[in-house]
Structures are given as structure tokens and as C-alpha cells.
């Protein structure tokens, strides 16, 4: 019991409304049962006024004796009994075998009786009150009284079973409605618990259904008074969260502005260097000075490399900064791929590489356009860079539920499996790589794809050689 109480005590703070209500109903039913038990005990051992045959028997016996002494006729006795309104008269009217009476004259002869059994206890005059065994008819409880003048003696008796039956009737009359209530009480209790917790669930639904960015306070006007502190606490927390978000957004905006400015500041002089180098190269070519032409060509190559590195670094920084801010839009991936392949095609042509696309339109998805473009551009750029002249690069679009898979396959030298993980690291360059590269392209591909919930995998390229990179994108947003 102690352990149970402990458990109850411990369970209390987390106990559900429903459990509390059910415990209350249980306690109510137990109280009822105790009340009925007390009533029954009182009935058996106490003397509730006018409640039982048992209490009336002495009165009835006395009444019969006195009536017979006054007027020794059967009719007078019957009339007297009819006039009574106690429980036993009801039993008489119902012709129950449970009640019996007899009146004797002083000489012991029977004046009148309502039962044959009366003759059986004719001689039993000793006890004024007590149980009598009647063969075949069970135990009877009888009471005898003498008339005031001593001329008549009367006995009234009830069958024990009838007494008990009356008690049973009484108990049934009390218990049965009570038990009938239980089946109604349980659903009612559960309904009350359900209705009472409705605002809690509404609050939960409101918070659950929210977008992560939605920090508006919850509506606490329709919340019951008891829940108001909870709603208030939630709103307070939301307010501080909104403030933190605001500060974060401002910081991100500053960062973005910084990158935009840095880009401008770095790119403009680089463009000037490139333009000057071009002028030098043109003049060197015009004047036929091969040494100077070689120097300017080196200068131009260095500017190109620096420009590419700057592009990738700024792209990486910007993608980092706007991973959470760039709008997610509904796009057709096939259309995007056509644009990007079209964009890269002139370069492929200049390199002598055959670039093609296989895409079944349309391929709807929700994605951040710039992130998507940077992934596709870097994949194509990477493949074109490492495929020798005369090679082939294929871009494939396939359905891979619940989203799409884009593969860029080439027949270049490929990447040994040992380096498959490393190629995605920032600034990784394959040992002995001849092509100018920043080592950031595939890092951008993987980081951007993962941020969008996609995957990147390396596989075989075309015709059993080269490299194939597969990127999967979830159909994304708005529940797909």
C-alpha cells in the first residue's frame, strides 16, 4: 500500500486529466458502496423506524391478542389487520407465504389463524420471541403476546428468508440504479476529460501546425484561465526567440552586405588587371614579341585562376549565408537542366567535348534556385574540366522517389575509389592534376546538396570509365 501510495504521489504531477477524473469516479462509487454496507448493517442489527417486519411483529401480536379479547371473531381480526398500513399488510395483500399469525384462547384452543402452520406452533408457548423450525418451510421468526386481560394469546411470525428477501429487494433497489449509472458515468467522465482538455489540444495543434519561422504569439484569448500561465510562458519564449532570430537575421544581413562589398572590392581590381593583361597581350602580339606574349599569357592565366577561386569562395560564403534565407520556389528540374546545359554548351564546344542532356520533362520540385544552379553548374564544370578533348559528358535526369536524381557522367580519367571521399573536401586537388581548378567545386556540390536534404554519390562514368556523380534532391517543401 505504501509503495502504491508513493507511486500515486510520484505519478501525480504527470497524471492525466482523464486518470484524475476516473479516480474521482472510482472514489464516488466506493463511497456509495460503503453507504449501502452501513445501511445493511444497520438494518440487520439496528432498529431503523418503521423499516422492517421484524420491528412490527410484537405490535401486530399484541394488537391481535387485544382485538380477540375484545371481540373473539375472525372478521374482527381481519378488519383490524386490513386497517394497518405497515409492511406486513402489504405482504398479506400479496398473499405471501412469508407471514403468518394465530390467536389462541386461554385454554390453548385456536380461535383463528391464517395458516395451517399455526397449528404446528400451537403448543409452543414457552418463548415469547424466537426462531421456530417449520419442517419443509424453513425457519420462522415468531413473537407471542398476551392480551391485557390474559384471555387471548396471539403470535405473529415471518419467514427468515422473506426478511432476507426484503433486504435483498431493498439493496437491489438501491444498488441496481447505481450500477446502471456506471456505464453512463464512464463515457461521461471520458467525455468531460476530452472536453476539458480540448483547449490544451487546440493549443498543441496551433503550435504543431506552425512553420519554424512563425514566431507570432499564440492566441491566449480562447485558453481557459488554468492554461493561461502556460500560454503566457509559451508567448514569452516565442518573443525572446523572435528577438534572437531578429538579431541573427541582422547579423546574417551584415555578413551578406560584407560579402557583397568584398566581392565588389576584390573583383573590380581583378577585372582591371585582366583588362590590362589583355591590352599587353594584344600589343605583344601586334609587335611580334614572343617572350612578352608568353609573360602576358602567364599573367592572364593567373588572373583567370584567381577569378575562379574568388568566384567559388564567394559562392560558398554566400550559399552558407543564405542557406536559410533563399526562397524555396517550385521549379521544373528538367527546365533548369536545359538552361544550365545550354549555358555550358558553348564552352563544351570550344573544348571539343560532346555535352548532352537526357531529361524527361517535367520534373517538378521545390528548391532554392541559386543553390540548385550552383550544384548543377559545378557538376558540369567539373566534368568538362577533367574530360580530355574529344570526350563526352552526359547529364541525366531520373526519377528517384520521393525526389529526383541528376547524374553527370564523363569518360575522362575518373577518380580512384581511395579518393572518393576526399574529392568533396574543400581545397582538395587530385595528386598530379594538370587542369586549373580551385578544389572547391565538389565541396560546394556536396555541402549545398546536403543542406537541401539531398545526397551525393560517386559512381562509374560512361562506357566503363571516367566518373559519374549522382546528386539526389528531395521533391522538397510544401510536403513534396
Amino acid at each position, binding site marked *: 500500500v505504501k509503495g502504491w501510495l508513493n507511486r500515486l504521489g510520484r505519478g501525480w504531477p504527470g497524471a492525466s486529466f482523464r486518470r484524475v477524473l476516473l479516480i474521482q469516479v472510482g472514489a464516488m462509487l466506493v463511497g456509495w458502496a460503503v453507504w449501502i454496507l452501513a445501511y445493511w448493517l444497520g438494518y440487520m442489527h439496528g432498529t431503523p423506524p418503521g423499516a422492517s417486519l421484524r420491528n412490527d411483529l410484537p405490535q401486530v401480536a399484541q394488537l391481535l391478542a387485544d382485538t380477540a379479547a375484545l371481540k373473539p371473531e375472525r372478521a374482527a381480526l381481519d378488519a383490524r389487520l386490513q386497517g394497518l398500513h405497515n409492511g406486513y399488510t402489504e405482504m398479506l395483500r400479496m398473499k405471501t407465504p412469508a407471514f403468518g399469525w394465530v390467536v389462541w384462547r386461554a385454554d390453548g384452543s385456536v380461535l383463528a389463524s391464517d395458516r395451517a402452520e399455526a397449528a404446528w406452533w400451537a403448543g409452543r408457548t414457552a418463548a415469547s420471541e424466537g426462531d421456530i423450525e417449520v419442517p419443509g418451510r424453513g425457519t420462522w421468526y415468531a413473537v407471542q403476546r398476551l392480551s391485557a386481560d390474559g384471555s387471548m394469546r396471539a403470535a405473529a411470525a415471518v419467514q427468515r428468508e422473506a426478511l432476507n428477501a426484503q433486504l435483498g429487494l431493498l439493496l437491489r433497489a438501491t444498488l441496481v440504479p447505481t450500477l446502471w449509472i456506471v456505464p453512463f458515468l464512464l463515457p461521461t467522465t471520458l467525455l468531460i476529460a476530452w472536453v476539458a482538455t480540448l483547449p490544451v489540444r487546440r493549443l498543441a495543434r496551433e503550435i504543431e501546425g506552425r512553420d519554424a519561422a512563425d514566431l507570432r504569439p499564440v492566441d491566449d484569448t480562447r485558453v481557459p484561465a488554468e492554461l493561461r500561465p502556460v500560454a503566457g510562458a509559451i508567448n514569452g519564449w516565442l518573443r525572446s526567440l523572435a528577438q534572437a532570430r531578429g538579431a541573427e537575421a541582422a547579423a546574417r544581413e551584415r555578413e551578406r552586405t560584407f560579402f557583397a562589398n568584398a566581392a565588389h572590392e576584390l573583383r573590380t581590381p581583378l*577585372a*582591371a588587371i585582366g*583588362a590590362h593583361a589583355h591590352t599587353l597581350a594584344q*600589343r605583344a602580339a601586334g609587335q611580334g614579341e614572343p617572350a612578352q606574349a608568353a609573360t602576358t599569357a602567364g599573367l592572364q592565366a593567373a588572373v583567370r585562376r584567381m577569378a575562379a577561386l574568388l*568566384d567559388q569562395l564567394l559562392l560558398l560564403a554566400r550559399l552558407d549565408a543564405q542557406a536559410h534565407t533563399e526562397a524555396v520556389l517550385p521549379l521544373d528540374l528538367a527546365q533548369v537542366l536545359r*538552361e544550365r546545359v545550354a549555358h555550358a*554548351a558553348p564552352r563544351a564546344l570550344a573544348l571539343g567535348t560532346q555535352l*548532352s542532356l537526357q531529361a524527361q520533362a517535367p520534373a517538378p520540385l521545390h528548391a532554392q534556385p541559386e543553390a540548385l544552379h550552383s550544384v548543377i553548374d559545378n557538376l558540369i564544370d567539373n566534368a568538362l574540366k577533367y574530360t580530355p578533348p574529344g570526350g563526352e559528358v552526359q547529364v541525366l535526369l531520373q526519377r528517384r522517389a520521393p525526389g529526383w536524381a541528376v547524374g553527370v557522367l564523363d569518360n575522362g580519367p575518373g577518380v580512384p575509389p581511395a579518393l572518393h571521399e576526399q574529392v568533396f573536401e574543400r581545397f582538395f586537388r587530385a595528386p598530379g592534376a594538370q587542369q586549373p581548378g580551385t578544389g572547391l567545386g565538389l565541396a560546394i556540390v556536396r555541402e549545398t546538396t546536403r543542406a537541401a536534404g539531398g545526397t551525393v554519390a560517386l559512381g562509374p562514368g560512361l562506357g566503363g570509365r571516367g566518373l559519374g556523380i549522382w546528386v539526389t534532391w528531395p521533391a522538397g517543401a510544401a510536403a513534396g
Partner: protein
Amino acid sequence: MSHRIVIVEDDLDLGEALTQALGTHGLAVTWVRSVDAGRRFVEAEQPDVLLLDLQLPDADGATLLAELRARHQRLAVIVISARDALTSRTRLLDLGADDYLVKPFEIPELVSRIHAVLRRVRGQASARWQIGPLLIDTQRRVVEHADGRVIELPRREFDLLVELVGSAGRVLTREQLQARLYRDPDAVQSNALEVHIHGLRKKLGEALIKTVRGVGYLLDGGPT
């Protein structure tokens, strides 16, 4: 014919370098350093091409673009900017820029873009385009070969050739070509475009038009 080009660029180094570098390609360049100076020059001199930076001391280059676009339909505008975000690019093209180059760019690339936008802007007026050995006469709707042959093309094939020449060096997707050539692209037979491409190749040579499989077509090398 020499085209007149105006550069609106506030950076001293870049302005100087661009003026010289474009000069080596025989292009006449005027360089100004503010939106206000750019506006006055365009109004007074009616140049052919405007190379427009965005971050300028007195205003955003985009405001100049929006303002000039309404009045000077024939002015070709190429935005040269350090901003490479997709949104910035799309916004400027929507505002009416003919092209968008991100700094740093290669001078040959800039020169070919200048020629390309000039072709597009003046396309309707320019009667004769030279591509390799071919001379395309848009008024007479004939193609002349350097060897003296006159190649006559059916209407659709000639329209297709003009589209490809106008975007030489870039891929035109099937959707773009169909939208430009056929009033109701959905009603055309799906292989109509291939048939016309095939016809052009047969008459003008296989190498002229390149196929980018799954995407579209491009005509290599710009006309002069």
C-alpha cells in the same frame, strides 16, 4: 562601321583598363564615372552600347537602366557588375539589360557580347550578316555563298536561320525556337524543327549548326 560605346564605371583602374583594352579591338570608347554623366552622354551622343556598372557614387546603375530603357529602344545595355547573385542578374535582365557580365571578365568575352547585343538590338535593321563563307540578306531573304551561289531557303528555314544567327554562340533550346517560330507551338508536329534543321544543314553545310542533345541547337561563331 564603328560602334560608339560608353562605359559607366566609377573605378579608376578598371575604367582606364577597359578603355585601353577595348581600344585594341578597334572599339571607340567613352568612359564616364557617374550615373548623371552617363545619362547626359546618352541623351547628347546617342551611343550604340552602354556598359553599365551597378555600384556607382551618385545612384544605383539599375535606376539609369530603367530610365534609359523607356526612351532609348535601340541602345544595347550590358551590365558589368561584381554582384553575381542569381536574383541580381534576373532583376537586371528584367529591367531591360541585354546582357549581364560578372567581374572579372575576359576582354574577348566582353567584345563578343558587345557584338552579340548589337546584333540583337539592330537585328531587324541590319540587312546583311556575314557568317564564314555565307552572306545572309534579311531583306531579300536569300543566302549568298562566297563562291557566288545564291541559296534560296523556304520561309520557315530562313526564319530559323535568322534566329540562330541572332543568338550565335549560344544555345537556343527547342522550346525557345518553337515559341519564336510557330505561332501555336503545341499544334506543330513534334519533329517539324528537326526537319527544318536538317534542311538547313543540307543546304548550308553540316558543320554550321551544332546539336546539343536533349537541349537545343547553336550556331557556332558570331557573324561580322
